[in-house]
């Protein structure tokens, strides 16, 4: 499997070359173009019950597409929003990925669902995160470009800007203001990370973008 990414940082599209019989998994609807030798099958994302829970509570996609090359072929994928695609080669490490940031992975990567905390339910970012571990390729997608931050000690990120972080990091979600402003605005939630590990942060946030866009959507 060979992965090339074209168009970073603002309009990325990843192309995955598959050898005969090779496959990989991609987020529902992510495929933009592909060779005719590639077949698609539905696969659950992180187990049946957790897929169901995420679908019911978070409105997220229930299944992923499994793309398998009957003969050598290519599949290209892109995110829904303009932004960067991040390629991580997992080598036994474990990453926590926010719901909208997962784009694709090789089948050797284990994907499981974790709850992300009660407060996160009100943040508009989804109440679940995915934990990706094992050995294989992982593709993450962002809105805007991605900043990689090595944390040693403490570091704070807006929930709407968090893409992924090392499982070795602890984090707590809290409101930036008081509880009332957090609940009413659905914004202003931050994640306080502590420990040692990497955090990936995106430079745009979908909820903020929508807030900005609303006054212009007249008619």
């Amino acid at each position: 499997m060979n992965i090339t990414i074209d168009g970073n940082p603002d309009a990325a599209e990843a192309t995955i070359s598959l050898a005969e019989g090779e496959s990989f998994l991609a987020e529902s609807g992510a495929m933009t173009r592909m060779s005719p030798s590639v077949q698609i099958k539905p696969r659950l994302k992180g187990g049946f019950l957790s897929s169901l829970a995420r679908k019911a509570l978070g409105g997220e996609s229930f299944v992923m597409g499994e793309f398998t090359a009957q003969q050598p072929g290519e599949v290209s994928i892109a995110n829904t929003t303009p932004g960067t695609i991040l390629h991580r080669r997992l080598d036994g490490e474990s990453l926590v990925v926010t719901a909208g940031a997962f784009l694709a992975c090789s089948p050797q990567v284990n994907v499981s669902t974790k709850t992300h905390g009660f407060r996160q339910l009100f943040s508009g970012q989804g109440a679940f995160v995915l934990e990706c571990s094992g050995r294989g390729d992982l593709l993450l997608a962002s809105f805007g470009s991605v900043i990689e931050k090595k944390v040693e000690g403490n570091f704070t990120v807006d929930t709407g800007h968090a893409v992924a972080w090392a499982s070795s990091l602890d984090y707590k979600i809290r409101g930036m203001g008081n509880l009332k402003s957090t609940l009413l605005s659905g914004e202003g939630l931050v994640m306080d990370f502590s420990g040692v590990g990497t955090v990936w942060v995106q430079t745009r946030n979908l909820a903020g973008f929508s807030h900005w866009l609303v006054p212009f959507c007249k008619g």
Partner: protein
Amino acid sequence: MEITIRDTGLFGHVDVTLDNDDAFTSEAGALFKMTSNTMLTTSSRKKGSGGGIFAAAKRMLASASFFLTEYSSKDGEPVQLSLAPLMPGDCAKIELDDSCRWYCTGGSWIGCGRDVSIDTEFAGFKKGMAGGEGMFYIVCSGTGPMIVSAFGKIQKIQVRGEYNVDSGHVVAYQDTLHVDVGNASGSGFGGFVTSGLVGEGFVMKFTGNGTVYTQSHSPTRLGKTVGPTLPERS
């Protein structure tokens, strides 16, 4: 005539330099700067092309503009102007040589030279409904440059044999290619169900030899992502 594509990525635009007897036509509204000796002629039809109001109305159905603007020189001195698409993304220049016609999908056509003619064609019921590119396509033929724009990154793909592009990601293609609409995951009812489940829906299936331009992003998919985060319209 000299055409330069400026800035790749989300904010591509095009610089056009016209010599004294050149002319270039674009969608009304694509122009964002020009030298002061530029002459603008706006009309519902392109000079030398057929059609009138009816052709202009058909063009609107293909997500292009009713009016076209022709640029030329007022005083015989060279003219410089710049064109920008509405959507964030790449622009590409395609050189037409009369050997084939080019189909441009909804909103991707930006402009073309004097000797390129523009027409509008019904996509056909099946392709129009399921292809995700609108019911009408802009068709260009003749000789000279044509400019297309895309949402996101443009890729130029040489098809030899067969190739699938997800609906909503086709920018332009040569008519030497045969195009059909099908399921991403195979034919028949099983393919239809699978496609629905994995969210891949329909694909444009190209067969033959020719060039296809694709875009990395789809306005429909962005709309589906952003839409639910917007409040209800009152």
